[in-house]
């Protein structure tokens, strides 16, 4: 008698049924975590303040509303700052600059870093060494120090700060990217692509890059927190972009002297910055955990 010819069983497992992008899945499952939700909440809150603040601020950023450094002034919710401007209004006005700077710097750093990291990992030859040594050179300077010198050199304009922070972010990102990409480069699907002659650039972009996304998301959020920190610290040390303009970093520097008398001028921006960094940190954390989860199940599959 004959043997049954094989037909694929119609039995489909649920995960086979549901078909979703891993990256999207990663974010989704990350968002499932409480910490990620809180993190996003915080980030959104601060971003909202930064964008909507200027519209709802009771006073102009530079209006003189009362005696300097007085916590309680009629019409000034959180009192006045070092030159008698309304702290609350300046706070509402001051978010955009530092957010923009930090975001731009981090973006720059990520882009460059990822590029370098991928190329280094994929070219398993001297180019790898060269690139990584160059990264080492940059790494050898503390971010803040390099920023200090750069700013002293060309003056504290936004471009300088973005460039300085961005460039010092690059090598750290590059390291992570390279680390994550190295095992991927050895995977057979890369060889498979090479075997049919897929162009190198495409291999980097569509074969390797997607597979290092999850660590990058985490790194990205971490870098953002660093960037914010550095930019704030620069302001604290007195190196900021256009003075007089409301800017959280600048506010801290201007009012830090009055901390014990009129804390709000420092507390508000610091709190905002801290919440923002905590937020991004939480998000990164969530993504990391989710990624760990996903990658583990994939590894076990």
């Amino acid at each position, binding site marked *: 008698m004959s043997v049954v010819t094989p037909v694929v069983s119609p039995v489909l497992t649920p995960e086979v049924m549901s078909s979703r992008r891993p990256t999207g899945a990663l974010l989704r499952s990350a968002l499932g975590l409480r910490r990620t939700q809180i993190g996003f909440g915080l980030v959104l809150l601060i971003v909202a303040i930064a964008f909507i603040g200027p519209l709802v601020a009771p006073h102009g950023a530079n209006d003189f509303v009362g005696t300097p450094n007085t916590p309680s002034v009629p019409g000034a919710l959180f009192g006045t700052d070092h030159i008698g401007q309304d702290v609350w209004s300046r706070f509402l006005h001051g978010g955009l600059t530092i957010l923009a700077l930090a975001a731009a710097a981090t973006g720059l750093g990520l882009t460059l870093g990822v590029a370098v990291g991928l190329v280094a990992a994929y070219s398993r030859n001297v180019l790898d060494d060269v690139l990584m040594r160059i990264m080492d050179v940059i790494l050898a300077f503390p971010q803040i120090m390099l920023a200090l010198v750069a700013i002293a050199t060309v*003056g504290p304009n936004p471009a300088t700060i973005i460039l300085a922070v961005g460039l010092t972010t690059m090598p750290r990102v590059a390291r992570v990217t390279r680390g994550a990409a190295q095992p991927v480069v050895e995977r057979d699907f890369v060889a498979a692509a090479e075997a049919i002659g897929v162009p190198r650039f495409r291999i980097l972009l569509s074969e390797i890059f997607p597979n290092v996304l999850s660590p990058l998301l985490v790194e990205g959020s971490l870098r953002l927190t660093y960037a914010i920190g550095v930019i704030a610290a620069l302001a604290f040390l007195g190196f900021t972009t256009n*003075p*007089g303009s409301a800017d959280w970093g600048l506010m801290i520097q201007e009012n830090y002297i009055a901390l014990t008398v009129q804390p709000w001028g420092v507390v508000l921006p610091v709190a905002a910055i801290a919440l923002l960094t905590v937020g991004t940190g939480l998000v990164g954390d969530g993504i990391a955990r989710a990624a760990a989860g996903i990658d583990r199940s994939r590894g076990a599959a």
Partner: protein
Amino acid sequence: GTSSSTTGPSAAASPKRGGSFRLGVTGGGANDIIDGQNIVTKPDQARLVAGFETLLEYDEDYKLQTTGLAESVTQDAPDQWTIRVKQGITFHDGKTLSADDVIYSLRRILTGSEGLFGNAGLMSVDPNNMTKMDDRTVRLKLKQADSTIADQLGQYYNGVVPVGYTRSGPQNGTGPYKVQSFNKGQQSVHVRNANYWRSGQPYFDQVTVIDFPDPSAQVNALLSGQIDAMTDIPFAQITVVKAHGGLAVLEGNGAGWLPLCMAIDMPPFDNNDVRQAFRLIADRNALLQQVLSGHGRVANDLYSPFDPAFDSSLPQRHQDIAQAKALLKKAGRENMVVDLHTTDGAAGMVDSANVFATQAAAAGVTINVHNDPNYYGDQYLKLAFSVDFWGTRNYLPQVANGSLPTAPYNECHWPPKGSNYVSLYQQALAEVDTGKRADIIHQMQKLEYDQGGYIIPFFNNLVDAYNTKVQGFRVSKATLNLDSFGHGFRTIWFA
């Protein structure tokens, strides 16, 4: 400006010897120096006056007195002065002060390459025409008539140094304290000069001058008792210090000033209407309130208020936006945009710029403030619009420093071409009769008041703080902080 409220203790309490006094001074850095005749950073002032003294001295009303090293300084003729030093004054190394030292000191100042601070003011002294009359007497023949020599000799930075003195050599002065150790950017330790010529003084065994880049660290140090006095307390902290038991604030109403400087030969300020408009934009009281929290006096675009010849009859300028707009319209400069350069060189410089920028907006003028760490670099004195800071001086000396073509710090490029300002200055110098000289000075001040490049919103008080266990501080019009550091730390003591 409140001064009475914070007067130091009555001098009645009899001074006591002993103790180690620690002073915190704002600023300082690796470029600190100790030099009997020059300063770079603020702490240098304290170190200078601890070790060196001048021939003449200003009293607490900014009047010249012969309490210094000179027993007399007289103008024998418009272009001749005679200096006679007191008897039995010795330097730290025991050598007695003589005419030679005076000559050497003046020569050193006049040697351009030394780059000393007093150089500009003593231009008219002829280094090759100083004659030693006797051991204690020197006669100066001037290149040109100059009646301000005495003023210059009273400036703290024109200290008397012994023959052969160099900055790198031993710090040998007549002052109450000898340098024991000096670490640039950190601190210097000065020990009591045992055979100081003023009997009984000084009182401390030791004085330590500490640099503080960060004012709030300075305040914290004072609060936590790690220093006994500090210069330039941030206005914000005044309430804190007052509230804190055992601390007091010393507010000397000196005549330091933070001008906004318009270069009168550079667009847009080469048009006096624009300058006038800007002068009318400034709300001087608001600036005083915002920048100094009121710790100062409203000014009238003129400097040297303590000069007997200061013309206080000129009408006080007030803000007048409408008028300013009109003038700008006239000058075809409506809605103009201009850069204003400033730096953290002295407290309030950045804030002044910002506040003025805000006020200017009302007149449709957009001012972009640039806070430039490299401000005193190449472009200094080449800027159209900038902020600067000055200390207390009488009129003519100040002019020599800042308002003549030959002046080292002429931010405004004053005077305008074809003006008789310079010749007026020469006359004033030559004029021996104070009354006549005052008239000439009034003319000069009128010129600056009407056409000058300075906007001077206020004179700022020197606000310092100290621990009340320190006695002897007096409220004065002194040029330097803390009553000129308690006259080189010799009139103060621990209770």
